């Protein structure tokens, strides 16, 4: 029932939410996750293509790069609606940071090619930046990479990777084709079923025209993409929280024990109210982050995004836990979708910064100011 209430003067957001809901009716979220688990995959190409056709894989890309040229508000509403229905393709994890990395890079043919592919769905362009142990060398043909990157979503389905790495020459954004010799992908199952990978580079050669962007530090390259990805994740998590809540409220009204629906027991009612308040808080935090980040990426925006991702992550996981419990034995089965809500919440809450570390970052940042 709770929703992010974002200023929507011309009704764009309402329309977008409606299309997302219709999309979810055609591409069932829980089945999608189950099939990823069975196939050890990370992206469902059919759903992905449909998302690209809807303009969602390039939603944040400027129109000049073939994208939809939409903003944070639209991304938040979309991610929230998909989270609500548990449609778990990695838009927030992959497309959002990819789009911002490309949008921030200076013009180049490679950037044009990748942006077009990202938007059309022809290419799956996957950023990789976490826990780098990469060293960058040089030889006649260009750069030589050795080392690893971790926690890469969509890597098994990627056609191209966007690496954010640093060497003695400073930080750079590199594109590397997924089939480049010297690059291997090692996957592990995510808790929700979607594979999460590490990239391993062993004397992997990259031509210099694949350097898309250069800055003094990885932080400067990642600042924008990370803010926006965390915001989109907060939205998806808020949606998961609201979806799990609504399913549980519905279940509690129909499940009868001791001659009454369990929703009529005061202890259950108060628990549901507490869950609802947590979901409302997540939505309110999300709205603040959308407003602040839309107004610029200064301190206010940073704080609001940290707060939103932390709150939404905690809300989704803790609502998920209580939702499983309130579903009783049924909630502990794999057949019941509520468990998938919890698992998806666990995955996204831990992704790109878990609540505890985001809170500490918030306080460090605020007190340093």
């Amino acid at each position: 029932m709770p929703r992010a209430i974002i200023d929507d003067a011309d009704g764009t957001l309402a329309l977008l939410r409606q299309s997302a809901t219709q999309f979810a009716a055609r591409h069932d979220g829980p089945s999608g996750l189950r099939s990823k688990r069975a196939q050890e995959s990370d992206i469902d190409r059919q759903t992905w293509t449909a998302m690209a056709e809807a303009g969602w894989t390039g939603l944040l890309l400027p129109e000049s790069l073939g994208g939809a040229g939409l903003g944070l508000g639209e991304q938040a509403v979309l991610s929230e609606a998909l989270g609500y229905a548990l449609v778990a393709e990695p838009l927030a994890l992959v497309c959002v940071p990819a789009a911002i990395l490309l949008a921030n890079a200076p013009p180049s043919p490679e950037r044009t090619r990748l942006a077009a592919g990202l938007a059309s769905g022809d290419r799956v362009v996957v950023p990789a930046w976490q826990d780098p142990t990469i060293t960058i060398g040089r030889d006649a043909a260009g750069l030589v990479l050795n080392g690893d990157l971790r926690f890469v979503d969509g890597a098994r389905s990627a056609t191209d990777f966007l690496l954010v790495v640093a060497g003695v020459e400073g930080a750079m954004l590199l594109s590397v084709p997924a089939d480049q010799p010297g690059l291997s992908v090692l996957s592990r199952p995510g808790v929700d079923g979607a594979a999460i990978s590490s990239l391993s580079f062993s004397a992997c050669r990259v031509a210099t025209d694949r350097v898309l962007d250069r800055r003094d530090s990885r932080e400067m390259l990642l600042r924008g993409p990370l803010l926006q990805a965390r915001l989109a994740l907060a939205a998806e998590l808020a949606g998961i929280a609201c979806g799990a809540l609504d399913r549980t409220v519905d279940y509690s009204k129909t499940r009868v024990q001791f001659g009454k629906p369990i929703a009529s027991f005061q202890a259950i009612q108060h628990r549901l109210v507490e869950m609802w308040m947590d979901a409302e808080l997540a939505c309110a935090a999300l709205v603040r982050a959308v407003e602040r980040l839309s107004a610029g990426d200064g301190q206010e925006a940073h704080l609001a995004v940290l707060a939103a991702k932390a709150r939404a992550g905690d809300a989704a996981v803790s609502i998920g836990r209580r939702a499983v419990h309130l579903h009783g034995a049924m909630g502990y089965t794999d057949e019941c979708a509520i468990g998938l809500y919890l698992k998806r919440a666990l995955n996204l809450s831990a992704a790109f910064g878990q609540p505890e570390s985001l809170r500490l970052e918030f306080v460090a940042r605020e007190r340093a100011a």
Partner: protein
Amino acid sequence: MAEDCNALSDEAFRRLFRDWVQANCPPHLRNMRKQRPLFGEVADWYRALAQKGWLAPTWPKEHGGMGLTPAKHIIYVEEWGRLGCPRIPDHGIGLVGPLLIQYGTPEQKAHYLPRILSGEDVWCQGYSEPNAGSDLASLRTAAVREGDVFIVNGQKIWTTLAHGANWMFVLVRTDRTAKVRQNGISVLLLDLKSPGVRIRPIANLRGETDFCEVFLDDVRVPAENLVGELDRGWTVAKSVLGHERIFLGAPTRPEYALGRLERLAEARGAFADRAFVSRYARLRLDVYDLASAFERFANVLRRGGELGADVSMLKILATELYQRITEEMLTIAGEEARFADDLEAGNEQIDAMNLFLDSRAPAIFGGANEIQKNILAKAVLGLPG
């Protein structure tokens, strides 16, 4: 005082109000330890507001109010809190005025409203009774009509600042036969100087006397002091809060307490301890997000909407958070959490125990949080039975 405050931008109004308060609210009244001063203790401030025409933010201008929109009213209340202005005895302004404006006779309005603005009349609110707390509809104080007067008998309790008031706005039962308990209740304006009124102040956990018992023995109230229709007082009483319900969940109190916690923690070096920082971070973000949630409801008002039952969530969150912040103050106070009096923090005094004890009250009064949850379960989640 001809400013049309509603015509100003939010920021301009905020600045105007802040500057004027800085210049006109006596420094010794700022950030008072006492939550509920008596009229005499804050009369200067009350009169300064009255003279400026800023005493009654929501009354229409024709009655001497500011006629603020809800959006501007929120700014008024926020700045009041942030600047540490003392609470004034506000039942006349916040409760009796709006009720008379809506339900009063022309004579009642003409008589009572100016006397509220002048401070001549100080009002209190006679709602709760010993056996009618959260369950207000079970009230038993009875008023029986005899000719031109009602004879009132019964007892009110938790009557805030009754010992500093001269009038009481009182809910009484006028029909004992009504089947639905909410019916048969009326609203009377009762002169506390009347024979048969006895007021006993009650000390609270902090050793202050915020509230009183009021005993009513054959108190004669003129029939013209009835507000609204006979036996329809429940509607009258319930109608009054309107958009002001949002303030029960304002982040002001938690924000103030968090500021005190920060001062104490800085003075004691607690920010060097990651265990404290981790706990502090949780409280800090809870305050931050409570403010975001408050904004969500404030936006409803700004857009001209009306508040639903869901606004109660703010009250639950704000009151529980206020408690948790004060509990953390005692944790970092260590052995000094044994004291009743204030703690030294650099060149300041931090009233940690005072705040801890004060924080017990808001979760109880104004409808205990359990009652709020019952309401939310039904009204928002649509849960059965």
